[in-house]
């Protein structure tokens, strides 16, 4: 009891050994995954900087350290599938196909932003890529994803809805109710639990009596698998298999990605709840450098190529910032726009 609530940090161990096996993907996929992760990383590093400079405001939740999850999952989905994410969704939005510049513009609050500056970091949306946000209510996206899958079922469309949420969300009633509905009605939802061990300052063992999250899925007869979320290869392979089950079986599936955020919960977090040593331990498993090492080891990537890629991404980031800087403020006269849908339908 008091042990569970005791102050001090959990020395939570990384999920397994650092992967060193060859990357079993052909080159374009293998390098694509690297590109994906690196784009998130550089976008967010810049965002943190811009937050410090006051260009980005509100709450900013960085995904740094967890990039392998979004990268590995997103490439297992098809364009017609739907994605629902949380407030820690820059990476998901980006890899789903939202442009970096419209994400950056959104965080600047400019009307060129993907949500016209209405949403900010926590509310990225994109109708074109079926990216349904950007939800800042923990577990709030879960029912939504079940509903999207239900709409597909009722319309006879065979698509997948992927729903991302943190392990903290598992404690919410909405998680339980949503899992049950998806399972009861056998709807094609891919539940992607990003278990980064903490919900703000609350370690998993302080939020769940059963820390093996697959046991939750079992309570609803939903198949489940735990995956090393620091290894983009493992993530991608597990997701491909799970998506196959969801798509062809038209049923839910639960994936637990064991991962870690290297940065604070948000820009306001003093990180009192975990040791630097723990963070460092996890950083050894960093999804980008371990993956880069593997690609190099098997001769799929040279340092020069990496530098070129990184420079290219750096360029994309710079352009995004420039775009955001040059963006415009929506006229105040538009304040009430889009509270309701104008006659004649969407303005998007």
């Amino acid at each position, binding site marked *: 009891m008091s042990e569970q609530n005791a102050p001090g940090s959990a020395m939570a161990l990384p999920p397994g050994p650092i992967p060193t096996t060859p990357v079993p993907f052909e080159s374009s996929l293998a390098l694509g995954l690297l590109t994906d992760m690196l784009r998130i990383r550089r976008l967010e590093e810049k965002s943190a900087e811009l937050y410090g400079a006051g260009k980005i405001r509100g709450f900013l939740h960085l995904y740094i350290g967890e990039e392998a999850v979004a990268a590995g999952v997103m490439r297992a989905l098809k364009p017609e599938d739907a994605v629902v994410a949380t407030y820690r969704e820059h990476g998901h939005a980006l890899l789903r196909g939202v442009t970096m510049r419209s994400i950056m513009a959104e965080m600047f609050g400019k009307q060129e932003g993907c*949500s016209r500056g209405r949403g900010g970091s926590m509310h990225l949306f994109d109708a074109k890529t079926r990216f349904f946000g950007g939800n800042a*209510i923990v577990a709030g996206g879960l029912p939504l994803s079940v509903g999207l899958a239900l709409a597909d079922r009722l319309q006879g469309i065979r698509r997948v809805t992927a729903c991302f949420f943190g392990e903290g969300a598992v404690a919410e009633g909405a998680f339980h109710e949503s899992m049950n509905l998806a399972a009861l009605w056998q709807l094609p939802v891919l539940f992607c639990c990003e278990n980064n061990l903490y919900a703000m300052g609350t370690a998993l063992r302080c939020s769940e009596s059963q820390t093996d999250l697959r046991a939750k899925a079992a309570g609803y007869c939903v198949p489940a698998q735990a995956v090393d979320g620091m290894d983009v290869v493992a993530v991608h392979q597990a997701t491909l298999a799970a998506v196959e089950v969801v798509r062809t079986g038209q049923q839910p599936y639960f994936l637990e990605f064991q991962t870690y955020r290297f940065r604070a919960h948000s820009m306001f977090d003093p990180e009192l709840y975990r040791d630097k040593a723990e963070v460092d331990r996890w950083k050894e498993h960093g999804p980008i450098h371990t993956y880069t090492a593997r690609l190099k080891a098997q001769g799929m990537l040279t340092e020069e190529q990496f530098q070129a890629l990184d420079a290219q991404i750096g360029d994309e980031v710079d352009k995004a910032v420039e775009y955001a800087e040059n963006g415009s403020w929506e006229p105040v006269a538009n304040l009430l726009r889009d509270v309701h849908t104008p006659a004649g339908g969407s303005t998007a």
Partner: protein
Amino acid sequence: MSRTSYREALREALREALQRDPHVFLMGEDVGKYGGTYAVSKGLLEEFGPERIRDTPLSELAFVGVGIGAALGGMRPIIEVMTVNFSLLALDQIVNTAAALRHMSGGQFSVPLVIRMTTGAGRQLAAQHSHSLEGWYAHIPGIKVLAPATLEDARGMLWPALLDPDPVILFEHGQLYNQEGELANDMVVDIHSARVRREGHDVSLIAYGGLLGKTLEAAERLTADGIDAEVIDLRVLRPLDDATLVASVGKTHRVVIVDEGWTSGSLAAEVMARLVEQAFYELDAPPARVCCAEVPIPYAKHLEDAALPQVTTIVAAARAVCGK
């Protein structure tokens, strides 16, 4: 014209919507096999099957959220939440998602969702089944709130609500289901205006939903006092149709607002606020309101009756406002 009940009118509206648009489906606790808690959806399961008349487990938060997701996915869901008290479990999805989504997505996603729920007291169901929280819903930007008080509105409001691209909440007062009367066969109603249900010159009585009937009755009784009351049915609780209200008060110069919500923070307060903002100099006497006593509704009938607006209390308030 044909004879029908409020319940049957609601059922006909559901049937019509299900027939007209294959994207419409009804979802909620016991809407199917049980036949609907208040028997509104009785028979629809047999007619439309379990995919479109969808029984849900007890999980208000999720199935309202599922409705939002289904709306985003191209459907036109009608969600039944049994009772407004239970809707508190789903408020997060309604306020934080359904009402906000279009705006916070910069206009990309509309949520064409209809939520129906029973409201109100009067059946001795006590504190956890008798609230009237319509006023709360009417506070939320991004949604519309309807309160059908007549057979016409019970029959006619659903379809325009479904055509609306944004969330619409429909409140059915529990005491209206058995109300019977004649209904025109091809009537059409709007979902934006208040309606004068009785013309009069001395005082405006503004009511909605379950209390329209008592208010009309009070108006009849007031004739005995030589008071010719106008009765307005708000019908649409958000957005309020100020013009109709102001016009009436401009004619009568006196007003009583009747509302089953608790007095403090009631929808009646909002109506009063708008009238003094927009028609202050038209008022010959302070506006008055007759609301629910500030008490969780008690079970015992005499206490419940005492808590709720009654014909006698409406009459008394109108008399006072008219200085009689």
